[in-house]
C-alpha cells in the first residue's frame, strides 16, 4: 500500500520531493522530532501524492506535443488537478509500454496504437470501459466510425476509445493519370492494374507506377483482407492463408512486383518519398493521412502558389477492391485512449478523474481542436466539419474510406503474424519462392506462433473456467 500512502482526509497539499512543499515538510519534520510519527506521516503524504490528484498521461510521437494545449484546458476546467503529460517516441512506445506493464509503472491514461489493444488486453493491463460507457453522456459508440471502434473491442468488451483515426488509401499523381488517359479513379483491381500500365508509359525512365514498400505490412494486409476471407481460422488459432480467396489476392498483389508495376524496395531505401513522387518516379503510393501534410510541404513545384498549375498535381482515392468500389476496404489505424489498471490504479476517485479526462478529449469540440493542432483525422465523424476537413478534396476520400474498413483478427500475436506476412510477400515478390510455397510456409509459421493460443483455448474448454485469453 506504500504507493497509495495517501492519508484520507488530511489537508496536506501534494508535492514532489524536491519542491518547496517538501522542504517545508522536512523542516516541519525537524521541528517535530519529538512526535516522529507525525512527521513520518507528513513525509509519506508528501512523497506519495494524495488528493487533489495528479494524472499521468502518456501520449506518443507528435501527438504528445500537439495535445499539450488541450491538457492545459482540462487543468483549467478542473482547478487543483494536474496532468503530467509525457511524450513517448512512437518507435520506442510499444517496448516502453510493455515494460511499464511488467514493472507496474503504467500511467493512468495512455494513447495506445489500436493494433496493440488485444495484446494489452491479454496482459490484463487495461480497464474494460463498458460500464463507464453505459453511463457516459459524451462517448457514444454511434458517433464513431464502426470499423475504428471495432479495433478496441476484444472478446466483446471495449478497452479503448478511438482518439484519432487513420487509414491507408491511394495517393496518386492526378496530372500523370490525365496524361496517361485514365479518365476516372480506378475502383476495381482490374481497372487499377490497367491504370498502372498506362502510367508506366508516361513516367520518366527508372520510375515505377506504384510504391508499395516491402517492409510495411499494411498494404499487403489491406489487399489480403479485401479478399473477404478471414486470415485466421478455427477461432483464430490457425493461419488461413492458403484459402483460395486469400491466395488469389496474394497472387494479384505479388504480381504487381513481378510485372514491374511496383519496385521491390523497402521504404528505408526511398530517401524522400515526396520528392520521388513529385518527380513522377512513383505515381501511386498506398499510405496514410500523415503524408497529406508532408506532400503539401515537400512536393517540388507545388510550393509557390503563384506558379502552381491549375489545381494540385496529386489527389487521393479510396482503395480499389477486387470487384469494385464496395469491396475496396482498408484497415483501421490510429490510436485510442485507454485506462490502465493493476497496482497503483485502485483509487476510484483518481480513475474517475482519468475517465473524465478521456471524456474531455472525446467531445466534438476537443476532437476538432485536436485535429487542427495535430492534423490527425478525428475519430468522431461529427468533428470533421468543425475541423475544416470535410470540404478538403485531398482529405474527403479518407472519410469515404473510413466508412469502408475491415477488421483484422484481434489476437495478441498479430504483430508477429503481420511481420511474417511481409516476409512471405517479399519472398514471392522477389521470386525466391513460388506463391504456393510462400503461403504454405506462412501458414506453417503462423500455426507455430498460435500454438500457445490453441493450448490455452483447449485448457479453457477442458476447465470450462473463465477465459485466460481476455482480461478478466
Amino acid at each position: 500500500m506504500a504507493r497509495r500512502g495517501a492519508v484520507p482526509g488530511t489537508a496536506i497539499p501534494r508535492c514532489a520531493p524536491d519542491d518547496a512543499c517538501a522542504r517545508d515538510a522536512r523542516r516541519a519534520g525537524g521541528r517535530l522530532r519529538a512526535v516522529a510519527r507525525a512527521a513520518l506521516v507528513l513525509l509519506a503524504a508528501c512523497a506519495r501524492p494524495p488528493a487533489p490528484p495528479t494524472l499521468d498521461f502518456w501520449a506518443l510521437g507528435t501527438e504528445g506535443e500537439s495535445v499539450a494545449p488541450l491538457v492545459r484546458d482540462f487543468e483549467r476546467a478542473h482547478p487543483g488537478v494536474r496532468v503530467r503529460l509525457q511524450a513517448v517516441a512512437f518507435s520506442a512506445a510499444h517496448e516502453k509500454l510493455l515494460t511499464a506493464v511488467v514493472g507496474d509503472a503504467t500511467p493512468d491514461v495512455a494513447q495506445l496504437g489500436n493494433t496493440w489493444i488485444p495484446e494489452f488486453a491479454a496482459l490484463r493491463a487495461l480497464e474494460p470501459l463498458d460500464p463507464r460507457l453505459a453511463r457516459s453522456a459524451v462517448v457514444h459508440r454511434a458517433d464513431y466510425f464502426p470499423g475504428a471502434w471495432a479495433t478496441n473491442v476484444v472478446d466483446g468488451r471495449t478497452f479503448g476509445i478511438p482518439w484519432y483515426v487513420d487509414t491507408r488509401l491511394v495517393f496518386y499523381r492526378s496530372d500523370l493519370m490525365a496524361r496517361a488517359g485514365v479518365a476516372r479513379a480506378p475502383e476495381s483491381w482490374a481497372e487499377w492494374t490497367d491504370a498502372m500500365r498506362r502510367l508506366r508509359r508516361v513516367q520518366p525512365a527508372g520510375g515505377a507506377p506504384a510504391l508499395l514498400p516491402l517492409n510495411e505490412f499494411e498494404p499487403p494486409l489491406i489487399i489480403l483482407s479485401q479478399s473477404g476471407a478471414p486470415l485466421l481460422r478455427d477461432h483464430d488459432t490457425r493461419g488461413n492463408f492458403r484459402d483460395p480467396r486469400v491466395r488469389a489476392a496474394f497472387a494479384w498483389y505479388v504480381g504487381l512486383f513481378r510485372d514491374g508495376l511496383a519496385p521491390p524496395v523497402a521504404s528505408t531505401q526511398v530517401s524522400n518519398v515526396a520528392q520521388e513522387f513529385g518527380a513522377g518516379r512513383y505515381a501511386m503510393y498506398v499510405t496514410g493521412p500523415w503524408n497529406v501534410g508532408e506532400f503539401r510541404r515537400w512536393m517540388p513545384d507545388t510550393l509557390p502558389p503563384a506558379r502552381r498549375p491549375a489545381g494540385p498535381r496529386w489527389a487521393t482515392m479510396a482503395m480499389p477492391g477486387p470487384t469494385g468500389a464496395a469491396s475496396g476496404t482498408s484497415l483501421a489505424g490510429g490510436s485510442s485512449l485507454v485506462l490502465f489498471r493493476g497496482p497503483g490504479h485502485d483509487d476510484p476517485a483518481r480513475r474517475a478523474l482519468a475517465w473524465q479526462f478521456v471524456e474531455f478529449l472525446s467531445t466534438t469540440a476537443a476532437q476538432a481542436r485536436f485535429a487542427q493542432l495535430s492534423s490527425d483525422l478525428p475519430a468522431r465523424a461529427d468533428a470533421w466539419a468543425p475541423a475544416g476537413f470535410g470540404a478538403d478534396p485531398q482529405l474527403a476520400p479518407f472519410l469515404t474510406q473510413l466508412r469502408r474498413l475491415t477488421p483484422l483478427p484481434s489476437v495478441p500475436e498479430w504483430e508477429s503474424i503481420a511481420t511474417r506476412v511481409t516476409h512471405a510477400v517479399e519472398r514471392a515478390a522477389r521470386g525466391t519462392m513460388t506463391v504456393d510455397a510462400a503461403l504454405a510456409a506462412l501458414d506453417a509459421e503462423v500455426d507455430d506462433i498460435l500454438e500457445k493460443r490453441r493450448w490455452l483455448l483447449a485448457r479453457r474448454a477442458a476447465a470450462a473456467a473463465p477465459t485466460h485469453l481476455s482480461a478478466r
Partner: protein
Amino acid sequence: MTARPAATGRAGWWFVAPALALLAVFFVLPVLAGLALSVTDFDLYAVADPGATRLVGLRNYARLFADPAFRTAVRNTLYFAAVGGPLTVAASLGAALLVNARLVRWKAFWRTVFFTPFVTTLVAVAIVWRYLYHPRYGLVNYALGAVGVPPVDWLGDPRWAMPAIILLAVWKNFGYNMLIFVAGLQAIPAELYEAAALDGAAPWQRFRHVTLPGLAPTTLFVVVVTMIGYFQLFAEPFAMTQGGPLESTTSVVLLLYAEGFRFWRMGNAAAIAFVLFALVVTLALLQRVVQRSARQRSAA
C-alpha cells in the same frame, strides 16, 4: 605479515565479498534466471497469468534449430564475423603502422581522425551512410560510376546488403583496435629493428619477423574482442536495414531482440541468447587453441 594462513584467507574473502556479491546479483542470478526461462514458454500470456507458463524442456532449442529464420540469422552472423572480423583487424593494423611510421607528421591528429568513427553515435552515422549507399544519389555509386562500374543497390539487394553493413562496421570499429595496435607497436624494442636492419633484413622481412611476432599477444586480444563484439551484431542492421532485404542482414541478436522485446516471447529469446553464448565461447576457445599450436610450431 605473520598472520595465520586461515585468517588471511578469511580476510581475503571479506575483501572480494563486495565484488562477488555484485557479480552474484547482477551476473550469476540473471544468467541462471535466463537459463530457467529458456526451458519455459514464458510469453505475453504468462505475464498476465503465471499459470499459463509451461515447462517445455528443450523444445525452444529444438524449435530454434528447426527454424529457417534462426539458421539464416546464424549464417548471416558467421558471414559478418568471418569477413568483417579479419577486415577490421587488417584495417586497424594497417592504420596503426601508418600512424606509427617515423615519417608521418601530426601523428596525434591522424590518430584522432581514425578514432572518431568509433566514438560517433551509430544512429547518426547510419543516416549518413544510408545516403552514401543510396542507389541514385549515393556518393558510393557516384564514385563507382566514375570508374565505369554500374550502380549497385547496396541496401536493397540481398547480395549486397551484408557487404554494405560490413563496410560500415569496419569503418566504425577499426579506430579502437588501431589504438591497441599502436600501443603494441610501441612496446616492441627499437633494438630488434636495428639488429634486423644490421643483419640486412628488408622492410618486409622486418615486418614479418619482428613486428608480427612482437604483436602476437596484441593480435590475439584484438581478434578475440573483435569477434565477440561482431557476434553481437545488432545496431548496424537495426539502424540501416531492420534485418532486410529478405532477412539478409538479420543477425542473431536482432532476432533475439525481436523475439524478446517486440513479441515478448521470452522463452525463445533466452534460448537464442544461450545458443549465441555457446557459439561465442566455442569460437573463442578454438581461437586460443589455434594460436597456441601456431606459437608452438614457430618455437619448434
